[in-house]
């Protein structure tokens, strides 16, 4: 299993990657959508965890680009949006089960990653 983390907050994404690797997950990270697209050029990923709000290309637009290359790739989205209304609006777009609000709980993230991978295997 290989996971790609993308968030424009380098300190966040690099620390999160380290914590996931301690939990046995093969993880790579990128701080821009351009970097993420470069990474998928020579490596295959099962799951991408994307920040929704990033400069230039946000998480949803990045998903559209990644899925063209890897139609089987699964996605989890995260954001710093605070309000209940924001949560509902975004959850409607991406699906509540694939959506996490920052600050993240690492165990919940690992659980979500495993859930989407299991779904992938079933499909």
């Amino acid at each position, binding site marked *: 299993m290989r996971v790609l983390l993308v968030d424009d*907050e380098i*300190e966040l994404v690099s*620390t999160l990657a*380290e*914590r996931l690797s301690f939990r046995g997950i093969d993880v790579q990270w990128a701080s821009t959508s351009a970097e993420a697209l470069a990474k998928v050029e020579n490596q295959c990923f099962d799951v991408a965890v994307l920040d929704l709000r990033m400069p230039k290309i946000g998480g949803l637009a990045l998903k559209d680009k990644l899925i063209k290359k890897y139609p089987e790739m699964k996605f989890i989205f995260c954001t*710093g*949006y605070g309000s209940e209304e924001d949560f509902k609006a975004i959850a409607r777009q991406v699906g509540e089960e694939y959506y996490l609000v920052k600050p*993240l709980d690492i165990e919940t993230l690992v659980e979500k990653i495993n859930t989407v991978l299991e779904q992938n295997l079933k499909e």
Partner: protein
Amino acid sequence: MENSTQGSKDDSLRFFGKIVASNSHEIKNVMAIINEKAGLIKDLTLMAEKGVVLDPAKIQTLAEGLNIQIKRGDAIIKDMNKFAHSVDKDSYQVDLCELTALMVRLAERFALRLSVTLDLKFPETTLKINTHPFILESLIWDCLFFAMETSAKNQTVNITINKPGDTAELRFGLTGNRFTDPLQSFPGDSTKIFMKKLQAKVLIDSETGELVLRLPADLQL
């Protein structure tokens, strides 16, 4: 007129909300980083309990990273607080350089999203003016946003401040581009109301191609 005044109030409120929302999002990011770094310290401690050697340098780096984020959060909160208090009184003396620097800092995240860099140059001396701070912030924001949207991607919006005669000026220049007179979409209705309230003018310097916001140095309300 009543409608336009209400419109101006709505725009002011929207502007206020936009700044608060953007900054609370920034604070969420700071908290998320602190959360991960604290989590990593916990992970390392648990691993140490199982016999993995704890690297003191790693812990020191994490602690330094936490300090950086706490300072970052503190700076955001100070700016938000300063901005919030600008609505306290109708008119008082402000340092135009400080107020402009605050608006530039508040606009940084929006600039990043538009792939534009903001470069503010201060004059050699401080520049105090009597004005309505919140309306001036709204007006500077409108000019700054218009400049950012006019700028080409990956270019710089250069902001300079000076004081010709009994006026004060903010100049917005574009690297590799010029504002052309007359402007098609700026200033809009609400910006015009802010200009009227501050007896300000927005013009184009045909020589330099800069957008100029000219303000009276001593506003008589």
